């Protein structure tokens, strides 16, 4: 078993036309998906991120709003999931409802640190 980082981008393309009931149904999909991972004991953690924040870059440590042109590029949260291998991690990520609303999930293996 190894740990994988799921990074969620976008998936919040909710136009004003989306009704409260539709938003709640969407929420329920996320919660069932994550609840399913948790039930199998494969969820190690995760958290949503606040909106906003800045990017610090360059030798002069310039603070900017970041290179994000669009909402779909902004990371909205992450999970850490335990899986047998990358293939299983991908399979789990495919169940994420985010892509239905224009979002994406990036799956990365966490490299063990020495020591």
């Amino acid at each position: 078993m190894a740990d994988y980082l799921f990074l969620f981008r976008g998936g919040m393309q909710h136009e004003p036309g989306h009704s409260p009931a539709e938003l709640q149904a969407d929420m329920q999909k996320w919660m069932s998906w994550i609840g399913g991972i948790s039930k199998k004991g494969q969820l190690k953690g995760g958290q949503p991120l606040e909106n906003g924040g800045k990017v610090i870059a360059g030798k002069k440590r310039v603070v900017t709003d970041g290179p994000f042109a669009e909402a779909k590029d902004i990371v909205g949260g992450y999970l850490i999931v335990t899986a047998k291998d990358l293939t299983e991690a991908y399979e789990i990520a495919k169940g994420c409802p985010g892509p239905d609303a224009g979002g994406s999930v990036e799956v990365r293996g966490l490299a063990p640190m020495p020591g």
Partner: protein
Amino acid sequence: MAIASAFPKVHMDPESAPRSPELVEHLFRHESGRMLAGLLRILGLQNFDLAEDIVQDALVRALETWRFGRVPENPAAWLMLTARNRAIDVVRRERSARRFAPDIGFQLDSEWTLVPTLDELLLDSEIRDDQLRMMFSCCHPRLAREVQMALILKILCGFGTAEIARAFLTENGAMEKRIARGKDALRETGTLYEIGSDAAIRDRLDAVLATLYLLFNEGYHGGHAELPIREELCSEAMRLLSMLLDHRAAAPPRAVALLALMCFHAARLRARADDAGCLVLLRAQERGLWDRSLIRRGVELLERAAEGDQISEFHLEAAIAAKHSLAARYEETDWRGIVLLYDLLLAVKPTPIVALNRAIAVGQVDGPEVALAALLAIPQGGLAGYPFFAAALGEMYRRAGRPKEAVEQYRSAIAQARSPAEAELFRQQLASCH
């Protein structure tokens, strides 16, 4: 494992891991109704779009943060707090450019009073009153009933325009226009209907009751085959009426009787359609499917409605519905009692529909010939095109041994049917003539 320590907050032991919590049914819909009522009280009716944006923002923010599996202990309070914070930002940003609710405008202008004013106006008890004010405002006599209903569903119940269009079997664009017209009319009135005095409540209460009853009937009798939509319309009418009854001055016995009536009808809703969506007549309904707890609630309410010296149409209709609900079998229905109640109802509400239903009950007591005479005595104008009138004639002719006339009536009922479900019901009855 090592990475977990790099994210100190993410570590969760299995005990505290999210359990895939279920949100309360309709939480977002009902809370958006509450938030919108409170925000419109503060921002004023002229800032409808602004208030709607704040509500939408709060819901999207909830989705962004709760979707990772942790719902706050009190989700409703979380939403309201989020909307409140957003409203404070919006007022600060917009107060030089916009006017808000005129009676509190100066309190929003000053940093000293802005936050305390919002906090006070967003207390649960205040929001409850705002919802009532909104309900009364939506029932403005200048607005057509279907506009009133659409506004109530949109503002107080949190339905999307497309959902309301579906419930009323209307085109999306037409519903959008209907709601826009209603909002414009609300804006023109400037402020919400004031319910501070009993007299003000009395003045418009009957209009509100009539609209809620119509909303309920839209779910109960409407042409929609989908049970969930019908149930939602009925339960929303009942929820709003219960909210109204919590207000002392808005709860005269006739309003209580209306809720009793809705309970008796709603108890039978699931038995009114078979698995294929076809209407099932009272006679053929599986009584085991009736919701006993709703019937009990109806009986309690009807007893409570008996105080006072006035017998309203709602009392009589509820008493008739109670007699149906309390009969163990169709054959054991107290038809004599029902005819007596219809006689009284006809005196306060002399409509052709009441006369039609009375004639059907008469048919159970005195036989089809007497019922036919009663049916044919109803002035025809009011029932023109109403398929259940022809169907009632058909039934009485059939029972009186006049199949030819029965067939003719059922054919005309089929031709007048307003939905496939109605047409199917009359076809079945037609088949029983042969």
